């Protein structure tokens, strides 16, 4: 199945490059069969055989669409999984990409990682939703949001004190390498608030206070925007489960505003819109 997709992918990309429909294909490559897959940028038709598709294709490649170095290569085709595809929708909503200037090659995804990544357990976007060309076929599961938030529910069963103690332990390991930020398609700011110093809103030090402030900021700046690709969590060298923070905001958006980021381009974004009847039972 995946090897069929891989072959189709190469053919599609060869055609796109040969017909000069695009200047570059942003896809996955791999040096050795059991090695990690990583992003590659193919500009010549004869190189398309470097493209691979398998369950080690973790990266959310849409993070590259807003990068100057990649933009300078010209019009891109991009390989996306269903979850990555949701990021395209958000980027378009936020006017970060011109969808007409990008060829989106969707690949049917049965899940990544061995064992499967946590995000894949309740995935309902095995098939990319907005791709220009879609390769392969996997039935989309039903949106089982209860399953999607199961990990968070289990976590929230703890007391607030236990939760605080947990995060303190997690944040003590954070070294502020900002891999979580750099890998995220939604963290496209030219200058992140943590890199601004007039005023210094977040301590740059990687102590637990500064780390808490940073992770609150990172997570909340994703509120209603995070598409749950979990790349931040995958790449964290300290193994911090940022997914839980993202999930809490995703669930909040879902619960209170019936909103899931990147599912509907026409939906008014959670932050940036409002309804007069929004709940306010917590306001004195």
């Amino acid at each position, binding site marked *: 199945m995946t090897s069929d997709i891989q072959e189709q992918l190469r053919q599609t990309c060869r055609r796109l490059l040969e017909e000069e429909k695009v200047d570059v294909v942003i896809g996955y490559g791999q040096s050795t069969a059991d090695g990690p897959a990583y992003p590659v940028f193919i500009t010549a038709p004869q190189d398309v055989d470097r493209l691979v598709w398998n369950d080690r294709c973790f990266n959310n490649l849409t993070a590259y669409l807003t990068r100057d170095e990649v933009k300078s290569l010209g019009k891109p085709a991009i390989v996306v999984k269903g979850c990555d595809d949701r990021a395209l929708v958000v980027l378009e909503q936020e006017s970060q990409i011109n969808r007409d200037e990008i060829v989106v090659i969707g690949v049917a995804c049965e899940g990544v990682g061995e064992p499967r990544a946590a995000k894949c357990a309740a995935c309902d976007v095995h098939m990319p939703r907005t791709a220009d060309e879609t390769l392969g076929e996997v039935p989309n599961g039903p949106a089982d949001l209860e399953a999607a938030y199961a990990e*968070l529910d289990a*976590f*929230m069963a703890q007391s*607030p*004190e*236990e*939760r*605080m*103690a*947990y*995060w*303190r332990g997690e944040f*003590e390991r954070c070294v502020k390498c900002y891999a979580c930020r750099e890998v995220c398609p939604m963290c496209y700011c030219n200058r992140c*608030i943590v890199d601004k110093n007039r005023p210094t*809103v*977040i*301590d740059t*030090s990687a*102590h*637990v*206070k*500064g780390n*808490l*402030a940073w992770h*609150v*900021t990172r*997570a*909340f700046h994703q*509120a*209603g925007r995070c598409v749950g690709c979990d790349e931040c969590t995958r790449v964290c060298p300290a193994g911090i489960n940022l997914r*839980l*923070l993202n999930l*809490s*905001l995703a*669930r*909040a*958006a879902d619960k*209170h*505003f019936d909103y899931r980021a990147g599912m509907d381009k026409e939906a008014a974004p*959670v*932050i*940036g*819109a*409002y*309804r*007069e009847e*929004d*709940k*306010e039972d*917590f*306001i*004195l």
Partner: protein
Amino acid sequence: MSETNGFEPKIVAYVCNWCTYLGADLAGTNRLEYPPNVRIIRLPCTGRIDFNLVIKAFEMGADAVLVSGCHPGDCHYTAGNYHARRRWILFRELLDTLGIDMNRIHFAWISAAEGKKFQETITEITEKTRALGPYEAYRQLCEASS
């Protein structure tokens, strides 16, 4: 004062310029006494009250934080408070997940005419925080960070 070993809670109130700040002013001119534990920080609008300010207040030793602005429909900038409300709805869930003590974060609508409500709100929050005691968990976290 109370049985809590003379603990005086520090409360930071981020208030909007057009309603709650004037409400506080009114409380003053009407000589409505409220606890001196509150530090009022005036911002243009609740829509400007960045969530980072809430974190900053805790970092600097606040035992509780109040965010307050105009009632729905009364925003000087038409909809700043509606936007703020949305953000708080989401932000509260994040803070809850992090295990931040939700009894220490308060939101209120207090208009320029509600000096009395300002007085009552501050009094209530102060007493509630006094009962909770100092926010030790956050303080320890900060002390571990020097």
